[in-house]
Structure formats: structure tokens, C-alpha cells
């Protein structure tokens, strides 16, 4: 069982925000889903998923890319041709 406190902790890790009104319902549904996931405890076998893919590498050379103005067009805040983000410090 995951507690409301743990749900809040996960919401914090994911920067998702969760308000007190929805916490109880979120927690009970979370637990119902996790209970269902317990079927995975019965899985036998080993190893990672096999696939026929191989690494795709290329030389580190500059290729055409979008002009700066295009890249900035959707950004919420800009300054001097850069995207402005919330403060980190």
C-alpha cells in the first residue's frame, strides 16, 4: 500500500503538483492499479527485451538546423535571443 504521503512525494519528484482535495482519490486509484501490477511478481524468465536494432551513429558534423528565430517562436519568455527559464538558484 502506498500512503498519501508517498503519493505526495512522487508528485513532488515528478513536479506534477497535487492538491489536497484530489489526494485521497488519487491514492486509492493508485493503489488499485499497483495491486493489479502485482501480477508481474509471477513472471518467470530473464533478461532484457531482445531486438534486432543496432546503434545508429554518424560523424559529429554540423547539419542544417532550424533558424534561431524559429526555435524561439514558441518559447514563453525570451531574452537577448535566448529562452528564459525560471531561476534555479
Amino acid at each position, binding site marked *: 500500500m502506498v500512503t498519501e504521503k508517498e503519493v505526495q512525494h512522487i508528485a513532488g519528484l515528478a513536479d506534477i503538483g497535487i492538491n489536497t482535495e484530489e489526494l485521497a482519490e488519487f491514492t486509492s486509484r493508485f493503489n488499485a492499479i499497483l495491486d493489479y501490477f502485482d501480477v508481474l511478481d509471477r513472471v518467470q524468465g530473464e533478461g532484457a*527485451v531482445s531486438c534486432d536494432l543496432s546503434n545508429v551513429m554518424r560523424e559529429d558534423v554540423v547539419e542544417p538546423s532550424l533558424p534561431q528565430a*524559429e526555435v524561439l517562436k514558441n518559447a514563453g*519568455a525570451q531574452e537577448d535571443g535566448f529562452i528564459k527559464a525560471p531561476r534555479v538558484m
Partner: protein
Amino acid sequence: MAAHEITFEPDDRYNAFLTTCNKAPHGDGKLGGIAVAVKDNISTKGIETTCGSKILKGYIPPYDAHVVDLLKQSGAAIAGKTNMDEFGMGTTTENSSFGPTLNPCDITRVPGGSSGGSAAAIAAGMVRMALGTDTGGSIRCPAAFCGIVGLKPTYGRVSRYGLIAYANSLEQIGPMAQNVSDVSLLMQVIAGHDRRDTTSYNKPYTHIPSPDIKGIKIGIPQEYFGQGVDNNVAEVTKRAIFRLEELGATTVPCSIPSMEYALAAYYVTCTSEASSNLARFDGVRYGPAADTKKSWHDAYREVRESNFGTEVRRRIMLGTFALSSGYYGKYYAKAQVARENIKKDFSRIFSEVDVIAGPTMPTIAFKFGEKSDPLSMYLADILTVPANLAGIPAISVPCGTVEGMPVGLQIMGKPFEDERVVDVACAYEQVVSR
């Protein structure tokens, strides 16, 4: 390239479109002048692309997805962007931030999801064909619920460049249309290698559907007709398979024991991938702006809490939990072992049969609000997720009705034998139309 223009002003009473392009330019070619709708999680240069989410409201992609490039090169007119469950997370299109799409067969029922807008637009005759995406059934489910045809191609066959990612290892872009030949035609245009998607294979699709299925072996997995599958849906599907036998196919009973944990493996995998993929939506580079005066955790949390819907937040949290230290081994690692077991089950069965057939969905389309708790909604995906976990091609073709609502026949094939599932669907379609 865009020498001409079509006028596209549909009566969208089903809320199938989020954006319509009233004057849609087009060129000449295989799809010259044909109006094609594009699901709203596929990037279209200069046309708003929201993934059905408020967090991308107003986002205008500066580039086209590879498939959209290919559509334009083939002369198609991009008619608009179709409604969807937010970021593809849902089975009904009820999770769209912009209101649900209605099922044209019965407006009190959901069209299925997450590509519900694409399916409804086709079923209502607004467009001849559309692109959808399928992470755990999101093309096949709405195709089945709305009575149209939808193909989830083999993983790697269609480039995902420009598809706004939800669960990279599972999802594919695929064609949807009224009939198998249009699905096949659209597949011809979108399949092929693209170096910008590192999981892309060089397997172009040039196939013309053939209804000749004499001698092919069809596996019938008992799990597709067992617990949780509506009896009437199972009956209609069995009758459809019987028609295929009349056309010269033989059926072989089989079993997919790993189905027991397929759904859990799917939901652990897709939510884990989503928790990483959706971290990019923070109001900095696109979408509603974050308050840059606040500290970054506060600013991101505010934007994400107020702009992501409940189901998206739930899945991000499930994935964050499944990947967190202490739980990784119990959930994510086990899900990957389960996934490998599912692939092995399919490869064992495919050593004896050519295709596998069963219902696409365990029931007909739900009434709006019928699946109010998330787990019961997840359970509806049980018959579609195995193909995504294994990366194999799967098509849904209408095969009859229950209570007046369409039922889909699902045909799954060996990896890169998309042509074969198309042929079986074509054979069935030709029987019905006779």
C-alpha cells in the same frame, strides 16, 4: 509542390477535429488532392499541434513530421488535426482537454481512443483517410468502435520523427480509412526508412492488397475468446473467422500464456516512458509560459498541475514510481521480462501459423462515462497491447455488429509481414461486400 488547393469546411458535429485547414494546399501524386486528416500528436509545420492537451495550446511546430513530409510529397491535402485523448493516454477520447469526440454510429457512445478523432472523421465521411498513432491499441480500438479499418504497422516500419513522444518503444504511426485498399495506399506513402528515427528500418511498403488467402494458417488464441470478452463480440468474430475458412484458410487453436501479465507489463512500460518523455513540458520552450520569477520547481509544478489532465498526471506518477529506486526491480524490470516472454510466445505461435486472429476489442463502444475508474478503462486494452509489446503488425477490419454497433476483427502478423495482415483483411472485406 503545392500547386492546388482544396476547400475543407466539414460539418464537424462529432468534434472530430481540433483544427481544420479550410484552404488546404496540395500537389500532384499518389494522393493528389485527397484530404487527409492527421492526429494532433503528429507535428505539422505552421499548424497548431496540441496532443489534445492544454499544455501545448498555441504550439505551432516549426517543422513537419517525416510522415507529413511524405503526405505532402504525394500530393495529399492536410485537412486538419484530429482530436485525441491527451497525449494518447486513453481508450475513449474522453481524456481530450478540448472535449470528447462522439461516435458517428451512436453519439451516446465513445468513438474509442486515443485516435478517436481520426476514426470519427473517416466514419462520418469527412475525410477518406487519416493518420493515427497506436501505442497500445489507439488506432485499432477506434477503428473497431467506429466501423472503419486501421493498421498498426510493424515497429520501425514508419518513421516516428516529429511524432510527439508518449512511449517510444511501443508506438507507431499508422493508416486509417474506410476500406483496406485505402489503408494500404496510405501505408505505401508513409512507410520507409528515415535516418532521423534511429529505430527506423529500411522496409518500404509497395504492396497491392490481394484477397487470395488460400492455404494460409490462422492461429486462434483461446485468450482472445475467454474471460472478459463479451460473448456476442466473440460470436461475431468467430463467424468472421469462419468466413475466412470458407475462402481457403485453415485455423489452428493456440495459446498465449503470457497474456496473463501483458496488460500490467504494458502499463508499467508506457507510464515509465511517459514519465521521462513528458518531463519536457515545463512551460519554457513551448506551451503556456512558466513564471520565470519563481523557483524552477514551483514554476514547473504550477504549469504542469494546471495544464495536464488527471489521467496524464496519474500516468506520469505511475511511471515515476515504477522507475524509482526500490521499486524498479519489482515493476519496470519485471515488465521487461514479461515483454520478452510475450515476444517468445508470438514467435513460437508464428512458427506454426501465418497470422493470428481474434476480436480487436472485448466489447462494443462504451457509453460516455461508463468507464469511470482508470483500471477498468485499462482492462479494455487487453487484446490490443500484445501487438505493441511484441512490435508486430496488427489490423482491425469491421466484421459485423452487436446491438447495432460495429465489431472489429483483429489480424496480427509476423514482424514486417504487414502485407499479409492487409491481405487477410482485404479477403474478409471482399466477402462481406459480396
